[in-house]
Every structure is written in C-alpha cells, then in structure tokens.
C-alpha cells in the first residue's frame, strides 16, 4: 500500500515532495508533547490549496486518513495513527498579501508566525498577537487550528480572536472562505459578514473539520514602548487579587503568575507576577503606574524585572523564572505532560490550592517516580486565567512515563470537575479524559464531525471519536 500511496501522491505534489522512507516518516510521529503516536505511511508536502484539495479527494476515494501538521510545536499530542497520510504544510509558506491600510495580512497556512512578524516589523506593524502562543517555529495555520493562548493574552485575547478570514479545504474536498472573504468580489476585512461566523468553526478545532490553507489576520502597530515589572508575593492569593485588579483596570498587556515549580532565581515568596505593558509612551507610563500601585497595594514586592523583559522579548518558557534554559532545562531527559485550561481569575485560588493538595498527597509517588513540577503558571487572559500545570517525568523510565501519563489524566479530570477548569489545550493526550464529560455538547460535536467528514478522513480520533 505504501508504494502505491506514494506513487499516487507523487502525481499530485511531485516525487520530491512525498516520501515513504522510514527515516523520514519516523520524524513526523510526535509533537513536542509526551504522547507516543503512530508512524505515517507517507509524508506529503503540498505547496498549494489546489494540491491539498487533490490529496483530500484522493484520500476520500480510498478512505485513507490524513493527519495535518505544521511544525508540531504543541505539547498536546497530535494523535497521528499508524499508516496514515501525514500532510505537512511548511511548503505552503507564502505571505500572500499585506494591507497596512486595512490592517491585515494574508498568509498560507505553513508560514511561520515569527517569520510573518519579522516581515511586518520593518513596516511598523505586527500580528495582533505577538508570538501566537506557540513556540518559535509555529505556523500560522497550526496556531489558529489549536487557538493557542498567546503572549499578551491579558490585553490581546486569544489567537483566534484576531482571525479575519480563513480559507479551508473541507474533509470532502470543497474549498470555502469565511466572513467577507466568502464574497469573491470582496476583501477579507470582516469576520462577521456573510452569515454565521464560519471561521469560528475551525478555530481551535485541531483540523478535524477542515484543513486551514490560508489565514487572514489582523495587524496592530508596533507599540512605542514596552515596560516590564516583576513582583513577589508571600501569599499566592494576593498575587491573584493583584492580577485581577490590573485585569479589571486594563492596566497590563500581559500578566503571568507563577504559583508553583522552582522559584525564580534568587527570589523568595509564595507566588510571583510578571507584568508587561506595551503602548504609546505616555499611555504605557500611566498604565504601568496603575499596575504597580495595584500590585503593591496587594502586598507585592517589586523585584528586578530583567527576567520579565527576557521572557517577553525572547519568549523562552523557562526564563519565566529568570533562569537561563541551561541550568533548569538542559541535559535533563524530562518530558512534560501538561494540562492547561481556563479558570476564572478568582477561581484560580481554588485551582491552585487543588493542585498543591494533589502534589502533597502524591509526594511519595513523586519521589518514587522522580516526578518534578516544572510550573503552575497562569497567563491572565481578558476574563480569567489560563492555567498551565506542568509536571515532568523521566522519559527514559517506562514506569515514570506510565505514571506521568496517568498523573496527567488525573490532573485533567480533577481540574475539570473540582477546579472548574476548561481545557484550552486538548489534543490526543487530554481530549479522551475531558470531551465525553461535555455531554450534549460533545454529542453535537460528534454529529458535526460525522456530517462534515463522513469518511472520517481528517485527524480521526483527535478530540472526538467517530462512529461509535
């Protein structure tokens, strides 16, 4: 089958852009997360929407599943199954149109988020959420497909909030455009045009309802200044109240709370808050003054903010702790089965306490299996907080791996119920533990998937199970 499959796909994309060599295929199994996955039968690299359409149509005719992949920089489990077609989008990397006056950029799905930003910045503009929430090499299509929680979420919101239009290849091979872009005579300037918000159907859907082939995204001017502050708190509840206060006042562009894991280098306290403000010079001055006043009124102690600046400018996760990746991360064969989701800002107090209890209850197991807590961190969003619970296990140990994955499931389920947390990051690792708990909503999503993808072609089994 592999040879025939390769030959058929080569007719569409050319010999050089499809491979069935094992040495190539094994590299397209996992994402950054810990979940083991299958090895695809072929990897195919289209360069155009038309080629994607042909691949999808061929897969439908032959009932052959496709998994779509950009740069696979999520930690959530891409759920690739053995023997599938792996459609890799990074050849579709053209920045197709930049319209500064209308404030948007249109790029093919495989364009790298930071690469688009690097193209826009000399013009004085940037994508409406810097970094997109993914790692550096995340693609715009993948980032929108998982609706990543971006840096700057406190002011800018979620990645999907700034999508103006999508071009999508449906599971049956038709190509649709959303919002005003659905009108061939119009431009992609408004998502809420031409009927229902179809873009919303594909944002955060992990590619199960269609392959996003092009994204039109809102721009914002590069702000005049960026200011950074860092606070230590002796009671984590004060840190949450401070963050909530700044949130309510719209004082900060980005607030990140640290409620567990190693303390930032040289710091003492129970919790910590990074504060970033980006704006015109005077406005940034005013907003930061207000944020500082709120933090100090909640017993926050101002601390050196170099780590905050580095974290923002270089988007390095471990530098949240003012620590270079080397000392904390390097040479440690640890993997991170993360659980992440939304809670209300005040609900964060309960969620943090629940995880701390879980950690204390399992201290003996943690010792036995060498489990570490990398982080219990929250990106404060516009109306709540996006909590990351990152435990680490030693990937070389089978027993630690099994325990780490079991722990992830327990954390996800406990946080969903007792912690009132709604996962933002799903993927193959978390979805089976959460989605069935959504009741009628899950049933509707399954019906939607069945209706749109009757042959179960696109990312089958990821987020929703079909046909059972």
């Amino acid at each position, binding site marked *: 089958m592999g040879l025939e499959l390769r030959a058929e796909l080569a007719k569409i994309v050319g010999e050089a852009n499809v491979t069935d*060599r094992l040495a190539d295929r094994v590299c397209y199994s996992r994402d950054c997360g810990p979940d083991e996955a299958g090895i695809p039968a072929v990897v195919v690299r289209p360069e155009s929407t038309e080629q994607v359409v042909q691949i999808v149509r061929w897969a439908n005719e032959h009932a052959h599943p496709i998994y779509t992949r950009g740069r696979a920089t999520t930690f959530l489990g891409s759920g690739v199954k053995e023997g599938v077609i792996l459609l890799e989008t990074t050849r579709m990397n053209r920045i197709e149109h930049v319209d500064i006056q209308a404030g948007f950029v249109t790029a093919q799905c495989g364009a*790298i988020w930071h690469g688009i930003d*690097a193209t826009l910045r000399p013009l004085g503009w940037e994508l409406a959420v810097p970094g997109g929430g993914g790692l550096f090499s995340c693609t715009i299509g993948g980032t929108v497909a998982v609706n990543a929680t971006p840096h700057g979420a406190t002011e800018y919101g979620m990645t999907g909030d700034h999508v103006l239009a999508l071009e999508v290849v449906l599971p049956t091979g038709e190509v649709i455009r959303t919002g005003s872009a659905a009108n061939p005579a119009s431009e992609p300037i408004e998502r809420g045009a031409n009927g229902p918000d179809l873009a919303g159907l594909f944002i955060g859907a992990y590619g199960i309802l269609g392959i996003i082939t092009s994204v039109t995204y809102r721009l914002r001017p590069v702000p005049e200044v960026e200011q950074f502050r860092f606070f230590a708190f002796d009671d984590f509840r004060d840190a949450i109240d401070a963050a909530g206060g700044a949130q309510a006042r719209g004082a900060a562009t980005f607030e990140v709370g640290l409620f567990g894991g190693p303390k930032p280098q040289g710091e003492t306290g129970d919790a910590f808050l990074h504060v970033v403000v980006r704006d015109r010079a005077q406005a940034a001055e005013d907003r930061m003054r207000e944020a500082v006043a709120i933090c100090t009124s909640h017993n926050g102690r101002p601390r050196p903010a170099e780590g905050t600046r580095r974290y923002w400018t270089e988007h390095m996760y471990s530098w949240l702790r003012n620590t270079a990746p080397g000392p904390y991360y390097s040479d440690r064969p640890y993997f991170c089965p993360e659980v992440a989701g939304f809670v209300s800002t005040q609900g964060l107090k309960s969620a943090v306490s629940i995880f701390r209890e879980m950690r204390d209850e399992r201290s003996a197991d943690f010792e036995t299996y060498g489990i570490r807590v990398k982080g219990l961190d929250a990106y404060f969003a516009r109306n709540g907080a996006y909590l990351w619970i990152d435990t680490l296990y030693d990937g070389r140990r089978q027993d630690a791996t099994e325990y780490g994955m079991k722990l992830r499931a327990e954390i996800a389920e406990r946080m969903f119920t007792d912690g009132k947390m709604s996962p933002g990051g799903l993927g193959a690792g978390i979805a089976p533990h959460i989605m069935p708990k959504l009741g009628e909503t899950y049933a509707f999503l399954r019906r939607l998937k069945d209706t749109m993808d009757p042959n179960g072609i696109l990312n089958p089994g990821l987020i929703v199970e079909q046909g059972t």
Partner: protein
Amino acid sequence: MRLEEYRNQIYSCLRCGFCFDHAVGGTEKICPSYATFGYESYGARGKMALAQGLIEGTLEYDEDIAERVFACTSCGACQQECFKFLPLAEVYDAMKQDLAERHLTPDGMTSLLDPLDADGNPYGKAQEKRLDWAPGRARVGRTAEVVLYVGCTPSYVRRGIARSAYTILESLGVDFALLEDEVCCGHPQIAMGQPQSAVGQIEHNLSSIERSGARTVVFACPGCLETFREKAPRLMQYPLPFEAVHITEFLASSDAFAHAALKKQSRVVTYHDPCTLGRGLGIYDAPRDVLSAVPGSRQVEMPRTRERSYCCGNGSFVRYDHESLSIETEQTRLHEAMATGAEAVISACPACQIALLDASRREKADIEVLDILEWIAKSL
C-alpha cells in the same frame, strides 16, 4: 554504539523546532540541509528523533540514515539556536562514527581516503608539489617563532590564499617558517566519522611543528585550525605545545599590522562569517578588525551575520555526495551578499571562497569573491 553516550541529551530534545528557524523572527530556515531537502529527517529535530529510534532499537543504521546524517555541512546553526543547549554536533559525530564502523560512510566522502593515505591530501596531488606556490625555499623547514600551517586547499587549490598569507607575514617582518613535510590536518577523516584514522597525520604535523621550535602556529583555514585547536588535544589527550590561532587573530593583535601603511581601497565589502571560524571557534571580531584596517573601504553586514550567519554550503565535504545541497546553499548565501550592494564578498576560509566563487561564476554575478588575505595583500 557510540550514540548511547548521548542518551540523556537525545531524550532531552524538546522537539521545539528552534533548530529550523531563527529564534527571534526571520523567514529564513537556518539549516542548509533542511532548507534543501525539506524533510525533518535532514534537520536537527529529525536527526534527534532518528537517534532516539536507534537507541530504542526501533531503527537500525542503514543507507537512508547515513544519507541524512552526512548531508550536514556542520555549520552549527542548529546548536546555536537549540533551546536546550544540546551538544548536537557531538551527537552527529557519534552517529557518523557509528555509521563509519558499519561501513555506511557515503561513497563520495570515502573516496577521499585513498588520496589522503597516498599523498597526504584529499585532492590526490603530489606531496612534492605542496609548496609549489611558495616564492622560494628560504622559509621552508627552518626554525622560527611562528609556523604558517598552510592547509591542503590553499596549498593546491586556492594558492592565492597561501601566497597572500606568506606575503602579509613577510611584509610585517614576522619570523615565520613553512613546514617542509606538512600533510593534511585530519579534518576530512574527522568529518567522515573516522577520527582515529587522522591520528597519524596529527602526530606527523605536531612533530614537524615541534622541530620548528615555533610557539605560535597560524592558520589560513578554519577547518585546519579547529582540528588543531579543538579536536587534536582530545584525540591525543594532551594539550598542544604551541598556540594555534587563525591568521586574522594573529594580525588583529599584531603591533606591526596595526602600524602597517595599508593602501586605500575605496570599495564597499561585506564579510561572510565562515561557520567553523564563527560559530565553531567564536572568532567574529578579528576578521572584521582586520578588514577595518584597510583605509577607504566600507563594511556592510548581511542581515544574517555573526552567530546567525548562514552557511556557504561547502562544509564537511558534503559536496562529494550532495552537490545539490552545496549549490542551493551557496546560491542563497551569495544572493544575501549581493543584496547588501557590496562590490566584494570577503570570507576567511578557503572552502567558503570556493563555494561563493562557484555560485558567482554560475550566475555571472557582479560581485567579487575574495579571501580576506587576498584583500589585505592587495593593500600592502
């Protein structure tokens, strides 16, 4: 399996993909091999996945893996960007050694071994012609403070570099010698995963240098310098009894060079950082300082420069098995140089010059390609 020694590092790969693109913005891919072939297996993240499969026994070394591991210019860009500071080059070296032990070194590269054995250089040129470029025998085989280790490529292929180095040192009044019996430094064998087969050449050169009494050895070729400075002490397990420096380091710290009356050259030039000299040995400023000494010229930088410079495509002898990789990469880099508007692109590595000249001739480009020593020699 040597790869086992790197088990922890291999499992530490986060698979973040920083090794594909510049970490802080930019649309360019940083890995020449990944940029050319497109599949992750040719980039660092993929090779770490292959390494994990090899350790776990789900993969075995074969021709496909050999092709991907050896299709690497050893430019070091992936290691430079690695989020977890993993020693990727060492992992690749271990894989190359494992592959060599299994007789899976690619044919083109293997073809260098016979001439190295027979003639002491990878080009199959006669040893007695090695010094044909030199203006006389006065400095050959004598004792001196400084030895100019010429290297195979300047000795046989880019003799303008050898002559320029000689001219510069002589004009500055440096007490220097040429080795009478210099042979290849061993860089090719190390690049093909057979470092032990380089030991004889290293011993030969070290004893020849010892006879010269030199305290300093200057190199025109970064590959030779890296072999002496980094690889030889590890292989031989003792420190070098002399200081090994790139000739630009030597010049940048030379009073005689600082006071030399160089002729004006009114040209705009751009400097291409050789990967081995820059990311490999951390030498970025010395070549620029040397270039700045020429009055009237103006240096412009390419957008990808210093630690983030892009490879010329000619590292680690990839051209012998993967010509398309070399051609695509050298063209990309030449275009970056041309986009600066410079009249000349100047490098400090014979292999880089060959690659950029190759691209320039193919495209009939309106930019001169020079080695830094040729540029300085013109100013004397």
